[in-house]
């Protein structure tokens, strides 16, 4: 009996093989086994042989959408900035997409970063991915030498120990609170759709912060970012961060100092999060790759919550619904506008 993930891996291989063999796609973007136990790494299959290396597990934490624009561009003939794009259809890319990755691709389509016609999306309803930190904590600081996955549990082995843990207990926060685990757009489907999940307290972590006093919130924020080494791994892994010159690297204008001064680090995190406002699909890649364990998802999560509350908007569900900061409604909330507050007070 193979596990769910093994079945998924098999089907991905099968579909990738077929797509590559029939030349429907030139490349297939998926995951393969990494070198560290349990680690998975993004992988581009170029032919049928490569396709055999495609795999799937609960450790696919990096959003593949991040690589998609680059891969598509790599398949275009090189041209000067003002040269028109070549005539005729361009080669396509196949890609695996869970719920949040597919929603991310919807945003990328809306922002002209990928051409829907050139991607073949293999949808995989997500069962949640593992948080490596949670996993490590469950075994203390001991080194893990192998991880064996079952459908609902993980068997962890190390030097002189062996432990079975409940899989769900070590799933990432973003996956635990995810309400749209199914892919939104796809051309092939692996497994069956599980439907939206109902999680009444999906924003609980944000609400806990909101409940604090101003000074407590400031202290939390300062504490959270204090370990930041400005390595920008969170930015680099984010499919929404695709500016040729990032605001942190720009010197004209210089929004953020390049030092490690706390103010500049704070501004980096504020602006980074704000740039994701109304676009972030909470894929959790940023947090998963942070070497310092900064929980920066809480920042984007707050904005996500507000977009929902203020504009009734969740990104990536429908390419035809404009992104919240590219549109407006005449009845948008304005209870924060001073003159409106005063009007209310007078009444």
């Amino acid at each position: 009996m193979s596990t769910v993930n093994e079945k998924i891996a098999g089907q991905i291989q099968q579909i990738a093989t077929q797509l590559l063999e029939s030349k429907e796609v030139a490349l297939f973007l998926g995951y393969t086994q990494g070198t560290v136990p349990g680690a998975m790494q993004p992988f581009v299959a170029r032919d049928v042989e490569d396709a055999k290396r495609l795999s799937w597990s609960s450790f696919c934490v990096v959003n593949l959408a991040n690589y998609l624009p680059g891969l598509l561009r790599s398949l275009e003939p090189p041209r000067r900035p003002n040269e028109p794009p070549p005539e005729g259809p361009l080669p396509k890319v196949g890609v695996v997409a869970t719920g949040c990755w597919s929603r991310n691709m919807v945003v990328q389509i809306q922002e002209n970063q990928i051409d829907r016609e050139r991607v073949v999306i293999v949808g995989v309803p997500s069962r949640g991915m593992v948080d490596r930190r949670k996993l490590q904590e469950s075994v203390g600081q001991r080194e893990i030498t192998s991880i064996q996955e079952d459908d609902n549990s993980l068997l962890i082995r190390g030097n002189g120990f062996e432990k079975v843990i409940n899989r769900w207990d070590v799933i990432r926060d973003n996956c635990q609170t995810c309400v749209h685990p199914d892919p939104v757009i796809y051309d092939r489907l692996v497994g069956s759709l599980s439907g939206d999940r109902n999680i009444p307290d999906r924003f609980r972590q944000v609400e806990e912060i909101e409940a604090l006093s101003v000074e407590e919130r400031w202290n939390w924020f300062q504490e959270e970012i204090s370990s930041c080494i400005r390595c920008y791994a969170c930015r680099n892994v984010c499919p929404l961060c695709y500016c040729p010159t990032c605001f942190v690297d720009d010197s004209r204008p210089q929004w953020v100092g390049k030092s490690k001064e706390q103010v500049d680090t704070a501004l980096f995190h504020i602006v980074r999060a704000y740039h994701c406002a109304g676009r972030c699909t909470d894929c959790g890649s940023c947090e998963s790759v942070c070497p310092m364990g900064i929980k920066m998802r809480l920042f984007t999560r707050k904005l996500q919550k507000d977009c929902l509350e203020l504009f009734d908007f969740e990104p990536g569900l429908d390419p035809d619904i404009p992104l919240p900061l590219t549109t407006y409604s005449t009845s948008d909330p304005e209870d924060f506008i001073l003159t409106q507050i005063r009007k209310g007070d007078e009444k």
Partner: protein
Amino acid sequence: MDRPKGSVLVVGGGISGVQAALDLADSGFFVHLVEKSSAIGGSMSQLDKTFPTNDCSACILSPKLVEAGRHLNINLLTLSEVLDIQGGPGHMKVRIRKNPRYVDTEKCIACGTCAEKCPKKVPNEFDLGLGTRKAIYLRYPQAVPLKYAIDPEACIYLNKPGRCGFCKKVCPSGAINFDDRPEEMTLEVGSVILALGFRPYDPSALDFTGYKNFKNVVTSMEFERLLSPSGPCMGHMERPSDKSEPQRIAWLQCVGSRDINRACHGYCSSVCCMYAIKQAVIAKEHSKSGNLQSSIFFMDMRTHGKGFEAYYDRAREEGIRFKRARVHTVLPAKDDNLVLRYSNEAGELIDEEFDLVVLSVGLETDPEVIRLCHDLDIELDQDNFVATSPFSPVATSKPGIFVCGAISEPKDIPQSVMEASAAACGAGGMLHEARWTQTKKKEFPPERNVYSEPPRIGVFVCSCGINIASVVDVNEVTEYARKLPGVVFAQNNLFTCSQDTINQMAETIKKERLNRVVVASCTPRTHEPLFQETLREAGINKFLFEMANIRDQDSWVHQKWPEKATEKAKDLVRMAVAKVRGDEPLPYNHVPVTKKALVIGAGVAGMVSALSLAEQGFPVCLVERKEILGGHARKFYRTWHGRVMKEYLEELIKRVESNPNIDLELGTTIEDVSGSVGRFKTTLSNGKNVEHGVAIVAVGAESFKPRSGPWNYLYGKNPNVHTLLELDQRFIKDDEGLKGLKQAAFIHCVGSRVPERPYCSRVCCTHAIDQALKLKELNPDMDIFMLYRDIRTYGKREHLYQEAREKGIVFIRYDLEHLPEVWDDDGKIVIEVEDQIIGKRVRLHPELLVLASAVRPRDDVGELSKLFKCAMTEEGFLLEAHMKLRPVDFATDGVYLAGLCHYPKPVEETIAQAQAAASRAAMVLSRDSVPAESITAEVNPMKCTGCAVCTKVCAYHAVVMDGKTGKAVVDTGMCKGCGACVAACRSDAITLKNLGNEQIMAAVEAAMESW
């Protein structure tokens, strides 16, 4: 005959006069704008908000006034009156008296010191006497020209020389001139436009209203001032007797309108229903308690304009009470309250108490205007409005003299603005040969290239007399400025804006080789253009300039803190210097104009527009989807004035077909449109490509045919059930069968003012009543029943309603809850309807049933609006750029609209709108190029990600994605420089010239430095 004069006299500085002046001055004519009072703005400047958008009246009006005030080709003559006009079209001599202002407008800086010191208080006529002003006064805070004037009747000095004279003593610029005397002058012009407006009806003579007897009975105009933030109670809505906030307000409609017995005004004033609803809504917003009860007592609710019915619906939802009753008497009650006595629909007498009563007074012509018209031999109608014909709605009986606005009939602002442009079209059309012959053009020396120079900044610090200097230490500020980086020259002036200082500034720029200038004085909103012009005169680009507002936003608002105000002034100067350092010379952008118009739709609107332009010498391509000209008017029998349509239409078609400037493209539609103002390219369905500078959309509308559904009423099932236009066909054909009819019935509002079509179709009440009268002409014994909801015979059309009642036509009111029931009894029509007044069901057996069905937008208008990037209303009519002040423009520059595609309207309004559209189009076509914004957005392709967020937030479609590069590009001809794209761009790839992030950051940083 000599070439006509290339100048026009516009009489009346209200919104319609100002609009006519601007249209003409911008299309090649010199304009003399004569205004009786000390400032232009007219009645609109007195209003608080405007319906149906609730825009702040002063806010939307002000920019137009400022534009007119500064226009090189508008000669503003305030405090002036027309004495006499001689001559005819093209050659007229006008005698004008200019009354003394006693204040030199060249010197007055509007600091207000004079009024502060003036000891004489008089009732302020701008506030209708509710507040006071001084004998030296500014008509209102945003007055244009922003110059004080002395009221000679109130002034102590002028009446008893030797006494008072304080103003002269305190005036810091020596502007007071007690020796000012009236002047008479004669102007030679080609044409005259009278835009003398109206005056609000004075209800003093109507005893029952209690006006003048009871303090808390006010007119609607007075209430407008009570609501206004610049009014006598600063917008706090206090009632006159005790300054308390009223909790119960009643509006009495039709005071001085629709009243031949007491007020001698048989006409409807058209605007009062809407302004009453607006006031009720705004009053509710103003109410601090939030429990204001607003009641409107009316006869028929006339919300017949675009967006009006929805406004009415919303007002009811918001709890405004509408009571259909005519009030007998207003009686005094305790605490200065008032009791209204009225009879309800059951005929019972009711007494109801209110805190404040607002009389919705009508509009009438000022007796002085009547006298002037008599003197000029201009025909007036029975109501003393200027008589016009439906087919030439802005022409008077006197050739060469045109009218616009409420002088010819009570009307709202958009209609007045529309007519203003139409009158400009009339005058311009007559004088087109003389275009640009009398206009002035400013010439400037070539500009010095300053790119390679390091900043050499000059700072001019103004004392503004003592306006700044009495609070801010200007010497300290000047010395401080001198030390700022990049500053090579600093100087303090008493009045920087005085002519000699301006001349000296130009010399200094040249002598010191300044390449950036900062003026620290008043507000750039009024003075930036003046100083920028000085830069140009001194040979440097006008965008190398900044102002530090150390008067309006410093010395005037921090009078008690001179030290802090001085510190702030230094900060403001430092900020301006930091900003100006980054300023670059910008191009004075222009877009060349293809001198051709495209007119879409060859109904009356399209043909009138096309002809108006063609007759001025502009080539026109007139596109019509059908194979024949004429559109809906072909089916239309006569106007409500009794003028037969066919004769006019045939003549119009002949003129269009024979005009060599008009290319007719029949059986043709629009396939594709590209480009923008001045340079459109349109592909027609016949494969032809048209290059044109402007476009006028006049595609009309459709008549709603209720073939099924709730408004069917046997339509299409019984041969004797017609729509209005179908009955017109029978009139056109002289159908003998109509004469023998014994009984006819009309049902109003068929498919209008209903949930699926919530607007009023405006034309049907009048059309139906006119048809009923026509039937009466054919057979005076015919019994005719009109089943209506509200009769909306606005303006002079009310006389028709009056006549119909006199002739025995029976009006039965129904409402949506009690619709008439119509059924077929063996081929005969039976109607049953509940008469709301007698409360009984009435059964009718008409041999003819006419359905006054809705005018509905055409389904294909959406396609067209997309091609031209124009907006539509929810109902599917085309949406103009601004409901109030730009009624024929689209938000897309160079595209205009006219006729039924805008909203249902009668033929005279369609013609006026078509002429207005032509006038607006001529403003573009008369020039070789049109100016475009200089401060525009600019894309850095190296930073652009192509995410297109900028294209989505641009309201002007000025940013588009380049299909080739996948990067955003800005069309500088279309960009207005708002910067929405800049703020939306995450990648800093798009910036605003001279207003980029770095420059704003430099100013912000400079603001923080001293602390």
